[in-house]
């Protein structure tokens, strides 16, 4: 009987140490979830709960390739090319993209470049004449971009290049909207390579600037 007194005391102390903060943590979590739901609904950058933001089928080369998406860019272009082709899109090199850019058909809208980056990096600089189409916020430009793509013979979609999958996501959305897959091509090197190769951009550069700052996410 006497032995149970210290035990009771210890269990009370333990309960005091654990139970109160744990209950409090649970309450904070519940209220925090409510706060998050409200903040997301009010935020201009808020995400939709049920939308599938990644409609492309997973690349067939899973495993180490998937891990390497966040790795330093060793063979990033080769990996990107394999990933794009495994999803059934034509993977274009810089040479093909540059050739299409110089083609007079581009000026008549038969060849269209689509920039799948977000609005801010697009405004900082993009391939001249490229239409912006952010696959995460497609509602803004969908009608205009789809109309232009349906008129074109060839649509070249790009993002920052390498591990960036946004061009493929944009291509998948365009395909869902009725643009034939055979017309869609992904420029593998993306805007990073375009800039590195000293190609024209819009608006024009005014001086030497850091590429990594310019390309953005």
């Amino acid at each position: 009987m006497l032995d149970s007194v210290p035990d009771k005391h210890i269990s009370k102390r333990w309960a005091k140490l654990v139970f109160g903060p744990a209950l409090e943590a649970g309450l904070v979590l519940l209220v925090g979830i409510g706060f998050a739901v409200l903040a997301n609904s009010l935020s201009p950058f808020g995400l939709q709960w049920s939308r599938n933001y990644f409609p492309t089928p997973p690349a067939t080369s899973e495993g180490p390739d998937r891990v390497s998406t966040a790795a330093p860019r060793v063979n990033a272009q080769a990996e990107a090319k394999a990933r794009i082709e495994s999803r059934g899109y034509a993977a274009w090199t810089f040479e093909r993209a540059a050739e299409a850019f110089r083609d007079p058909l581009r000026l008549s809208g038969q060849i269209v470049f689509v920039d799948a980056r977000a609005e801010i990096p697009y405004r900082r600089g993009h391939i001249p004449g490229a239409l912006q189409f952010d696959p995460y916020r497609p509602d803004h430009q969908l009608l205009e971009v789809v109309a232009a793509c349906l008129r074109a013979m060839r649509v070249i979609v790009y993002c920052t290049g390498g591990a960036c999958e946004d061009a493929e996501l944009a291509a998948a959305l365009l395909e869902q909207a009725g643009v034939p897959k055979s017309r869609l091509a992904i420029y593998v090197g993306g805007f990073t390579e375009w800039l590195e190769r000293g190609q024209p951009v819009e608006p024009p550069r005014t001086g030497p600037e850091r590429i990594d700052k310019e390309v953005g996410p």
Partner: protein
Amino acid sequence: MKSGPTYIELLGLGVRWFLGLWVGWLGLLKAWDPVLFLKAVRQYGLIDTPWVLNATAILLPWLEVFSALLLLLGIAVRGTAWLLAGMLVGFTVLVGWHGWQLHVAHQMPFCAIRFDCGCGTGEIHLCTKLAENAVLIGSALWLGTGRAGQLWSVRYHLVRSCVST
């Protein structure tokens, strides 16, 4: 006559504010660009269901901001510290595990690995991130298990334990 705050109380206040500011800043960075965070969560390859992925990317940043606000104001300090410690331990395990996978896949030294862990600060060296998280977890555990952090708190105990009297 009541004396001024002790060194421990002042240290507790400093740690509480440091943790609040740091976690709040990281949460706001993610909340500011949730798409970037969504992509970062996806890269771990643990969640395939779209709504679970979206819910994770929506809830975590704002939960961090909310916890940071509570810490800065001094509301439910111990419970918030526990919650943060739990979240931080989970993130640290995930980041460490992903780093280990990269280390194995690319045969690179563990501490030379640099990637965007989705923590809000962009690309960072793995070991730097793990050390940073260790400091944050230590701070949260210290606040959560002791009585430090009571100074200038609006409501230190949100819930008084039923056995506390």
